[in-house]
């Protein structure tokens, strides 16, 4: 059984046992308890960091070292495994992911904010119904739509190859559509909390509705936009089932537009046959490091953005 499971079973027992084991010495008990809690925290931190470090080290090992023992130390620190991983397509997968993410994120935020704004601040017939329809979409599992979605995107490809299976734009539009429910839901409540006075003053000065949105409301909604933006970045970056279903080459000659996640998994499956484990570890490192660096630079924003988006 895995260590994390062992740990989980231990936790409730320990917590339940603590008050009994520690008679009324609450102020002095701090020291011992700190050791106790630090122990658990440190063990978990090691459990997170150790596998990651092990993967990075693996990129520098030789094939026989990796296939020999888990404990071998890399004999040489050359970067040729990284070059091999890159030439096997990791670089291309990265580029594909960035292209799709850039497009889908921009569109999600723009369209989501537009819809949420109108629904939150304008009275018109059908407002509640449209809002309800958007929110309802957040409850449905994506598996419900998978089969028709595949054929719909394939049919779009017959109209224009830029929209069909294995196309960037097709996947971007699908990402946007499936991110809209949560984005609209979150920004709807956010736009409602913004003061109306500034907006009304601008309207009296002859500002158009569109200008009021882009120049007044969007800047005021920035904190909300950042929260939901981070949520969408992680959500779309973590997406697996949609690219696996939709980014399939339909003919043999078509170029591979796999997302990073998908490409890496394929590389892992291939390496079982080709036996180039260092390149696989290097590929994982290439896929992990940039994200970790970005996260470490913005960790405060990421954590607070994600929690506020979730708690809404």
């Amino acid at each position, binding site marked *: 059984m895995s260590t994390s499971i062992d740990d989980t079973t231990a936790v409730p027992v320990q917590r339940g046992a603590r008050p009994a084991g520690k008679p009324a010495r609450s102020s002095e008990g701090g020291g011992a*308890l700190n050791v106790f809690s630090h122990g658990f925290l440190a063990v978990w931190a090691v459990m997170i960091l150790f596998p990651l470090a092990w993967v990075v080290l693996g990129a520098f090992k030789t094939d026989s070292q990796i296939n020999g023992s888990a404990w071998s130390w890399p004999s040489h620190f050359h970067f040729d495994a990284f070059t091999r991983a890159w030439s096997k397509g990791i670089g291309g997968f990265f580029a594909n992911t960035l292209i799709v993410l850039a497009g889908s994120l921009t569109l999600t935020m723009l369209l989501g904010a537009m819809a949420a704004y109108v629904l939150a601040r*304008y009275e018109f017939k059908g407002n509640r119904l449209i809002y309800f329809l958007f929110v309802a979409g957040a409850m449905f599992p994506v598996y419900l739509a998978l089969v028709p979605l595949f054929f719909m995107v394939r049919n779009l490809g017959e109209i224009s190859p830029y929209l069909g299976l294995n196309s960037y734009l097709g996947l971007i539009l699908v990402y946007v559509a499936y991110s809209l429910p949560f984005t609209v839901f979150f920004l709807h409540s956010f736009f409602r909390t913004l003061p109306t006075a500034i907006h009304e003053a601008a309207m009296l000065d002859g500002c158009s509705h569109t200008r009021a949105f882009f120049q007044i409301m969007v800047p005021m909604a920035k904190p909300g936009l950042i929260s939901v933006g981070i949520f969408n970045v992680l959500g779309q970056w973590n997406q697996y089932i949609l690219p696996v279903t939709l980014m399939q080459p339909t003919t043999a000659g078509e170029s591979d537009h796999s997302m990073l996640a998908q490409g890496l998994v394929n590389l892992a499956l291939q390496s079982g046959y080709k036996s180039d484990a260092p390149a696989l570890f290097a590929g994982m490192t290439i896929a992990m490091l940039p994200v970790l660096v970005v996260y470490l630079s913005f960790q405060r924003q990421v954590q607070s953005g994600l929690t506020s988006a979730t708690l809404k």
Partner: protein
Amino acid sequence: MRHGKYPFIVGFLFLPIVLYVGLVLWPYAQTFGYSLTDWSGQSQEMNFVGLDNYTKLFGDEVFLGALGHNILLLAVLPVVTILIALFFAFMLNVGGRSGTGGVQGVRGAAFYKVVFFFPQVLSIAILAVLWQAVYRTDASGLFNGVLIKLGLVDAQNPVAWLSDPNLVLWCILGVLVWSGVGFYLVLFSAAMQSIPKDIYEAALLDGAKRGQTFFRITLPLLWETVQTAWVYLAIVAMDAFALVASMTPGRTYGGGPDHHSELMSTYLMRNFLAFGEAGYACAMGVVIFFFTLILSVVSLRVTRRERIEY
């Protein structure tokens, strides 16, 4: 807000609604229709077969097994993850009670929060590939390596983790817990920090012990957040597709050995893309939908409580 209001509303709503209805709502609706046919997916030909797909589903051993695995994940994952995350969050925020009687977290709380959150930013597929290497069945896997080093496992006879029918699902669960705890720890921390310190100080003056403080103050005030976490973890448990499909053995989309880690979603994908049974796969989609629906209704009912204002 008088002139130009309606053109503006229509202009702003048009694209989002077209995309949303076209790519989300319409496919959802179509699935219900297709689930009543014997459509293979490749040809245009389909016949209405009524509820045949559904009767077939509930006699399908593999699908029923998959349903059971989904239920197991749903029952275990949220409980385990929330317990660990709550424990860590409590330690990080109020656990480090110093001799002066102040209420504070242990040293290095910021460091732990950053590190525990790591798996959350790594894409789930990266985690899958990483853990596949960790769970390798020979001595070169990290787990077997550690266990052999500790002398717990015979080097000649390492544990078969993902190829062991009794272990495979627990291995997947382990990865889910490992990757999820950090996020819920941060979530609970944020909620704990919004609880006024004077409540803790008052409890401290009254001689409350740590356990009492946790169960009488922290947990009740945190209940709404725990409820949110529960719903999110249920979604995660329903969505273990990426891990199972890429880590476990089996013909297309994992699920092995011998269907012991099969989920409704992996079976759906196999029927759809490998077996060419689109209608049957749609019926599974509908079952997943109703399953999720019942789940959210039940969890909202069960966890409903008086809202505490502070």
